[in-house]
């Protein structure tokens, strides 16, 4: 499973982009990522989740998850993310920072 994580916006306006090879993570961490993706119902989410009006200096994320069976991309405003998707984003942010 490969995850492409992108973040735009924020006070600094500095974009972040990272590729996470889930299978290369330590086993407990990889399992945790899989669990969080499932809890978010990621592959059933709409490809665009936007806030009614963009808030200044907030983040906008784009996450693409690719497995042998399917590939799905979700673009989401920070303020509009459902809680389970928010958890996934936090986890991926943390992994992206470590790269």
């Amino acid at each position: 499973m490969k995850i492409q994580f992108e973040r735009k916006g924020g006070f600094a306006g500095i974009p972040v982009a990272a590729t996470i090879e889930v299978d290369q993570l330590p086993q407990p961490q990889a399992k945790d990522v899989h669990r969080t993706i499932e809890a978010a119902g990621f592959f059933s989410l709409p490809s665009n989740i936007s806030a009614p009006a963009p808030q200044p200096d907030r983040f906008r994320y784009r996450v693409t998850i690719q497995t042998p069976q399917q590939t799905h991309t979700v673009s989401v405003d920070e303020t509009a993310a459902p809680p389970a998707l928010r958890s996934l984003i936090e986890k991926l942010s943390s992994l992206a920072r470590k790269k």
Partner: protein
Amino acid sequence: MNQPICYYIPAHVLANINLARAKDLSEPGSLQQSAKVSEAFRQRRRQAGTAALTPAPPSAGPTRVPASSGTRSHSVPVTRGSSALAPAAIPAGLTTPIPGTHARLIYDDQNQWAFDLVDVRNEDDPALPGQNVNLAYDALGATLEFYREVLGRNSIDNLGLNLDANVNYGVDFDNAFWDGTRMVFGNGDGNIFQDFTKDVDVPGHELTHGVTQFTAGLQYSDQPGALNEATSDIFGACVDARVNHQDAGSFNWLIGEGIMAPQLYGEALRSMAYPGTAYDNSVMGRDPQPATMAGYVPGGDPHVNSGIINRWFYLMATDLGMDEAAKIWYATLQNLWPTAQFADTAQVAAAQARILARAGTVPSRAPQTVRGTAREQGII
């Protein structure tokens, strides 16, 4: 604040009406007045809810009443804020601010992804051992002071809106924002950014988004978005310069230099004097801001094209003085509208400069400076 979804009158007609009015008047438009009333009303409602959770003082023993704000509350159980609209009860020993008194309330979110968790310091309360609470408290105070003393504005809504700030929001959070109700600071990741309370232009910038929300309501995309972003950098810079007793000539015209992590010391997030030069390193990449309209990025992030307007303000301030340029910008902001373009802003600013020059507030050459610098920037 709620943005209208649909206009009966087409946007371009509204824009022309606004433009014509803005050139003739120096008073804020009536739409702007009503926006302020809504947020002030909502805040009073929220704070009335908080006051209801505070029990009446016991009959025995004195009640200490601080000079400038409400009575000290007595022991109440600290409940966690469950939503943005229901802040926790004021804990024992903290002042209970009265709505509409431009009072500060600082909350510690304890590295949770939630707002207003624990109220730790309110207006007139003493400094705490933890540093970032006090930096937030002081920075909010400096921003309020700038708005009051230089622009004659009573807090963000001009009706004394109390200021709610949250520190320690989330984990390694590389951001700060105004969400329509509160100012929120992250700790930074330690790699690129330190705690976002460490540079006063951050809260100056973010709170100004609140001021824009209550005045022009500039939409956060394309040219209005760049104007919105630039306005926040402009008044953030003015607060920063004022705190450091600097003027247009001695100020560094940098945004965010104080929050850079140690390994990136000397870099900044934006340069208003030289857009596109704030940073250039392997960790952050290179500053993408254009310096003039020649480099305008169609559909660009508001933080990118704001460079054009930032430098325009820098040029005006360098000629006329920082406070004078700030007053022109503030008068302009009060006469703009959600879809205003760069060229509209130049026309309104020149008209407002004439009004302020006639009043003796800015030098008599101000209108020509406004137009000349706008032309230099390729805006007109």
